[in-house]
Structures are given as structure tokens and as C-alpha cells.
């Protein structure tokens, strides 16, 4: 029986204080424990970005891939070694912009990957350009007059393309108390049989 400590190492993340990535990081560890998985049962594939550095901060096998190609790499890994719990963690730029194509097809194929998108509506690592999910009118370095584009709706896209598990959570939330905070990520790994894609924004 594993504990949260089994999935932890002693490397401190470079994330800013209060960043939502801390919540996602902890939720993933708790979910893996709840699913009674050991570090060797898991594979984490990430892209490029602040949050994509997550495999460095966990004691699990991980792969920090190319920008936007997270799901393509994870698909290859899953087909080569489908006994492992494959988790992808990447941001909205990686997942919806450069990797939007891969998201659509991974969902359509129903590949057994838990896909967690850290969607902060902005390219934060590169200091604040607008992303596919930025709201219209958002003033950023690349949109000084406010964005003209309408934001993408990733959940609606995933649902219409046949996704078999679609959820949204708030990274650092204490909304509704600690029970609820833990309930959702735990369900991602535990209650669901290991079949098909789990898409979480």
C-alpha cells in the first residue's frame, strides 16, 4: 500500500507561490494513493511549460516531451506498455494550441490516458501571451488592445468527439471543503476502470 510520500521526492518546484500547479500536483499524488498504485505502475508524460516540469518533482517514471506532442508520446507509450497508468499533464498552450490536433484524436480513439490540462488561460512561462482559452478582450503582451478571438471550449469539443470521461476542477480549490477537493481527482484514477481517455480541464 503506497503513501503520498512514496510519490514524492525532495526537489522543490520552481512554481510561484500560490500557483495552481501545487494543487494539481497534490491531487495527482492523492489520487494515485487512492487508486492503490505504486510508483512503478505509473508513467507521467508532460509537455513544455511550468506545470510540465511535474515529473521532475515526483518519484515516478516520467517523460518531458516536445511542446504540444504530449498526447502523441503518451499514446505511443500506452500502446507499448498498456499495463501502466499513463497520466499526461500539460497546459492550455500545449494541449489546445500546438497539441489541439492530438487532443481531438486521443479523445476520438479513446486511448487509456488520464489527460490533465493545467488551463490558466495564458502562456505564463513565456510571460503572458494570450492562449486559446483566453477570454475575448483580454489585454496581454501580444494583445495590447485586448484579444479579438473567441475562446475555445475544450470540454464541449471533447464531448462532441466522443470523450468517455470529461471533468473540470479548480487547481487550488477549497471550494466545498476538503472532502470535495479530494473526491474528484481520486475518482479519476480509482473508480473508473482503466479503459479509455479521461479528460480533465
Amino acid at each position, binding site marked *: 500500500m503506497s503513501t503520498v510520500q512514496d510519490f514524492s521526492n525532495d526537489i522543490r518546484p520552481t512554481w510561484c507561490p500560490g500557483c495552481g500547479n501545487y494543487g494539481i500536483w497534490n491531487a495527482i499524488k492523492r489520487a494515485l494513493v487512492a487508486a492503490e498504485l505504486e510508483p512503478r505502475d505509473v508513467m507521467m508524460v508532460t509537455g513544455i511549460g511550468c506545470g510540465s516540469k511535474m515529473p521532475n518533482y515526483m518519484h515516478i517514471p516520467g517523460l518531458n516531451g516536445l511542446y504540444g506532442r504530449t498526447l502523441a508520446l503518451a499514446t505511443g507509450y500506452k500502446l507499448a506498455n498498456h499495463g501502466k497508468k499513463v497520466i499526461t499533464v500539460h497546459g492550455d498552450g500545449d494541449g489546445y494550441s500546438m497539441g489541439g490536433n492530438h487532443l481531438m484524436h486521443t479523445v476520438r480513439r479513446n486511448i487509456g490516458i488520464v489527460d490533465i490540462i493545467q488551463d490558466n488561460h495564458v502562456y505564463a512561462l513565456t510571460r503572458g501571451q494570450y492562449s486559446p482559452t483566453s477570454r475575448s478582450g483580454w489585454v496581454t503582451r501580444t494583445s495590447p488592445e485586448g484579444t479579438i478571438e473567441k475562446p475555445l471550449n475544450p470540454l464541449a469539443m471533447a464531448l462532441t468527439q466522443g470523450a468517455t470521461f470529461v471533468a473540470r476542477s479548480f487547481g487550488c*480549490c477549497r471550494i466545498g471543503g476538503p472532502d470535495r477537493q479530494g473526491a474528484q481527482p481520486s475518482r479519476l484514477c480509482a473508480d473508473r476502470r482503466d479503459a479509455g481517455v479521461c479528460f480533465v480541464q
Partner: protein
Amino acid sequence: MGYEWYRDNTYQLTDTGHDSNDRMAAIERALEYPGGEGKIPLGIFYQNNDTPSYEEQVPVLEAGPLADQPLRKYPIEKYRELLDELF
């Protein structure tokens, strides 16, 4: 926008009696954000455990993960035949 904003501008789908097995209801909820005027829904929109996964339907994977299968399934001559066909 900080945590307070999200606390005030989100709601849990479980509080509304949303049926996560209903795909059309899930799509309607998904269209609430972005695009709608109201609060942002959080929680499980949709789940369907009956659809087989891709890897469950690949015949060669029935024998177990590829990574655990023997690298050379047939005698080496068999692979030479295939190579000869190509070149």
C-alpha cells in the same frame, strides 16, 4: 483573478442534480463556460464506462503489453523474407 473570484464564480455540478451519464446534458453544461453568462461549472460532466478503449481492441495486445512480449516472435529467416520483399 484570485481564489476569491473562483469561489464566487464557480459551482459544483453535483449540487444541481446533473446526470453525468447524460451526454447531451453534459454538452449543455460545457457550453456554459466559456460562452455563457453564469458561473463556471466544476465536477464530472460526463462518464461512460461502456465504450471499449483503443488498446483493448488491438489484437496483438491481447497477449499482454508489447514491452513484455518477446522481441523476436519468429525465426530470423522470416524477417529476412520480409526484408527481401521490400528491397
